[in-house]
């Protein structure tokens, strides 16, 4: 028994344990997501975050100790954000013809996302750090976390809110678009990607390839638009 405890003490002090825990939880989450026919409610990130948090709470592990191991995964967020330029370029190349309509629509959507989140959040009494963590919710997680951190929000809360926004958009998007009678695949994809980044893009791709491409492009453009607009809006109004 002491032997086992010694091993546990040794392992929990090395990065290996929590790095492996992160990967195993994500693999398990992805497996469940695939088995459930990619149901947005069973998002693999959401499932693995719940699994890891549960394990840390049960074993009484502090987040800082967990992060010692998980930081190796976390570091790759930066390079991955830079690499988003490649899909952005590929899609931009495809739809160059309607560039002006696309840019204006994403810009309008980006403003709507920021302003409605801030307005409703503050009307309902959200605290400043909550509002800052919520405002970039429509942007792909690595960028949203960077924006939130830069303005004094909580990147980890932002990460979770971004995922929930993705799930909400993936589920509600098609219903809302049917209700307002927008049938054009380009407009549908653009709206999904602007509001709900990669999670909605994955959803759009399942339905229609054109919608998927526009959604991916919108996700990249909105990341840029929000990174520039949100700090300006925040400094003007608050």
């Amino acid at each position, binding site marked *: 028994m002491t032997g086992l405890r010694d091993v546990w003490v040794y392992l929990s002090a090395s990065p290996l344990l929590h790095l492996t825990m992160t990967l195993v939880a994500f693999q398990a989450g992805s497996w469940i997501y695939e088995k459930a026919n990619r149901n947005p409610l069973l998002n693999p990130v959401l499932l693995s975050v719940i699994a890891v948090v549960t394990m840390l709470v049960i074993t009484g592990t502090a987040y800082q100790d967990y992060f010692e191991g998980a930081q190796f995964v976390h570091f790759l967020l930066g*390079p991955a954000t830079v690499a988003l330029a490649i899909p952005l370029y590929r899609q931009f190349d495809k739809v160059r013809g309607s560039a002006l309509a696309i840019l204006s629509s994403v810009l309008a959507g980006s403003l709507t996302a920021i302003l409605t989140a801030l307005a409703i959040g503050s009307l309902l009494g959200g605290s400043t750090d909550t509002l800052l963590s919520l405002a970039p919710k429509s942007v792909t997680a690595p960028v949203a976390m960077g924006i939130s951190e830069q303005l004094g929000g909580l990147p980890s809360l932002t990460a979770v809110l971004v995922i929930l926004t993705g799930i*909400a958009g993936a589920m509600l998007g098609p219903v809302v678009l049917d209700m307002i009678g927008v049938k054009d695949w380009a407009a549908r994809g653009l709206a999904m990607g602007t509001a709900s980044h990669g999670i909605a893009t994955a959803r759009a791709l399942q339905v229609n390839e054109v919608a998927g491409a526009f959604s991916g492009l919108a996700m990249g453009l909105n990341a840029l638009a929000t990174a520039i607009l949100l700090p300006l809006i925040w400094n003007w109004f608050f």
Partner: protein
Amino acid sequence: MLNALTLILVCQLAGELASGGLQLPVPGPVIGMVVLFIYLMVRGGVSQAMGRTADGLLSHLSLLFVPAGVGVMLHFRLLEDNWLAVSVALLASTVATIIVTALMMRWLSGKQAS
């Protein structure tokens, strides 16, 4: 492969330097993304190695935000205090964004066609 990874890291570093040095509110990696995008525009295409490296990095993009997402355990209290503002703002704002973007796009592409 190594070339592509180096270029990505150089772009990120340039972005971090610009963001920190010029006190820009935009995060370093986002500026890095713009730098790489401009590079691709100038070059006029994506090399095979760069395409493979980026696809590799991005194919498991969602794994990369698990460590940060787990940090939500530090903010249970905050969420408890703000759950109404957060959930209503999140849902309403997402729906509003979808409607505005879709209608704007339909209106503008209709104009272009006529």
